[in-house]
């Protein structure tokens, strides 16, 4: 029963992701390459989960630590896009994405205090990987500059909003560490880690 339920959830998530993908592609084709770049991440569940997880993790660490990602994350996406265009995307990166999800989820679940430098390095690495993955759908007629601008803009907006929302949800630094908001964030981390673990399993099995 439990397994069936999980399969149902996974199937529903896949269907939802495909619906978003279709809509994003329609909107993108109608609004040009800037919006194609901005909406492309919506076509991939890994982007949605990983960007969100990174934003929540950074936000949970406080404004002083997280705010650097406003710059670092979009720059990483741009660098990844360039790398992906130059060298292509390795197939093993699906497993790397899943492993990244697992790591981010565990860090959030454990409420680990991460130094700013390490957080920036993690965010840059993640953005690099996802930027390269987003490069895979660039067609020969796509305007690279517009697509890159759209992707960076989406990365900036998504990470900034996710961090601020997590920060607002977490509340003030002075609130007790056992407040329900902090527990909820840790529980969210656990779910993200579980999704990552499942995806690593699927990746290795296939």
């Amino acid at each position, binding site marked *: 029963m439990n397994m069936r339920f999980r399969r149902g959830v996974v199937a529903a998530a896949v269907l939802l992701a495909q619906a978003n993908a279709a809509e994003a592609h329609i909107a993108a084709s109608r609004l040009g390459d*800037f919006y194609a770049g901005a909406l492309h991440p919506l076509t991939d569940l890994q982007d949605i989960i990983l960007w969100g997880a990174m934003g929540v993790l950074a936000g949970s660490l406080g404004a002083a630590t997280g705010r650097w990602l406003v710059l670092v994350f979009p720059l990483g996406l741009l660098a990844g896009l360039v790398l992906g265009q130059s060298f292509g995307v390795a197939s093993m990166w699906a497993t790397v994405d899943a492993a990244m999800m697992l790591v981010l989820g565990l860090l959030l679940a454990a409420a680990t205090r991460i130094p700013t430098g390490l957080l920036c390095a993690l965010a840059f690495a993640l953005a690099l990987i996802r930027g390269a993955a987003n490069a895979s759908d660039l067609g020969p007629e796509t305007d690279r500059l517009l697509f890159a601008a759209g992707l960076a*803009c989406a990365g900036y907006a998504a990470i*900034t909003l996710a961090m601020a929302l997590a*920060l607002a949800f977490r509340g003030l630094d002075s609130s007790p560490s056992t407040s329900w908001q902090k527990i909820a964030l840790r529980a969210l981390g656990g779910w993200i880690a579980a999704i990552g673990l499942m995806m690593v399993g699927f990746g290795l099995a296939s």
Partner: protein
Amino acid sequence: MRYLAAALLVLAALILPSQTRAHEASLGVLELREVRPGAFIGHWTMEPTMGADHVDLRMPPHCFVRLPELNCGEKGLVGPVTITNLGADMSAVLIRIIPLAGEARSYTISSANPVVSVLAAGAPTLQTWIELARTYVNYGIDHILLGADHLLFVLGLIWIVRGGWRLTKTITAFTVGHSVSLAAAAFGLIGVPERPLNACIALSIVFVGIEIIKQQRGEAGLTARYPWAIAFTFGLVHGIGFAGALAALGLERRLLPAALLFFNLGVEIGQLAFVLLVLALIWAHRRLDAVLPRWGDTLPAYTIGSVSMFWFFGRLLSVFAAT
């Protein structure tokens, strides 16, 4: 706030060339004139930039089409009409059907509304209104989202005007201004040549850039003192620009008020989405205490000024080139 605007402006500068093209609209207008019952002669009164030969036009299954000839037999031209290769080279095509008897009818095929159902002649049905709403709301959203100049002006207003209520009044004044002039231009009450108008729109953004600099120097500029008046005045100018896109579709007069309403609604939805996104990002930046360093204070204003002056000179050149 400044951080956000800087990022947005740099991106606006990057998207400039294509957006300018998009605004000049890759539209086509196909006129189908009934010469005998069920038989039409078609010709392009406005040829799309990709060329009429490349348009993949699909008529209802009972119709035979090889332009300029279109024959639908006894059933007449009734049923789904679509164009399969709409995209960046051709964003919308208006099909104008002139029957032997009765009023001409117009249908707009766009990427947002790729299939239209041609209805039998007679009074508009509920289906006609639904189709009209779907087409023109989407067209309005597309138009504002692709209009980097309009969005940049709105961004400038948000930058200058502080305070929620004051900003609401300012954005509302801009909306009222462009709605009034859009309606006036669409009904032919006013007419301004497109190219000089586009240059004026660029100049309005330069004005906003200068106003931001003034504000940063501690001077109270016109926009800071009378934000709603400035927003309303420039709203009038931008509204005539919106009307240009609508006029290019050559709607029949009977449907124009409704099309205008839906188009304006689409523009408002797009504008509201943009304003909400910018406000959300401003809130996020405040929450994160992520602001530009002191040396970068004037960067966004100069970016706005530079981008809009670039637009202005480009558009001015096109005015002289056309004369």
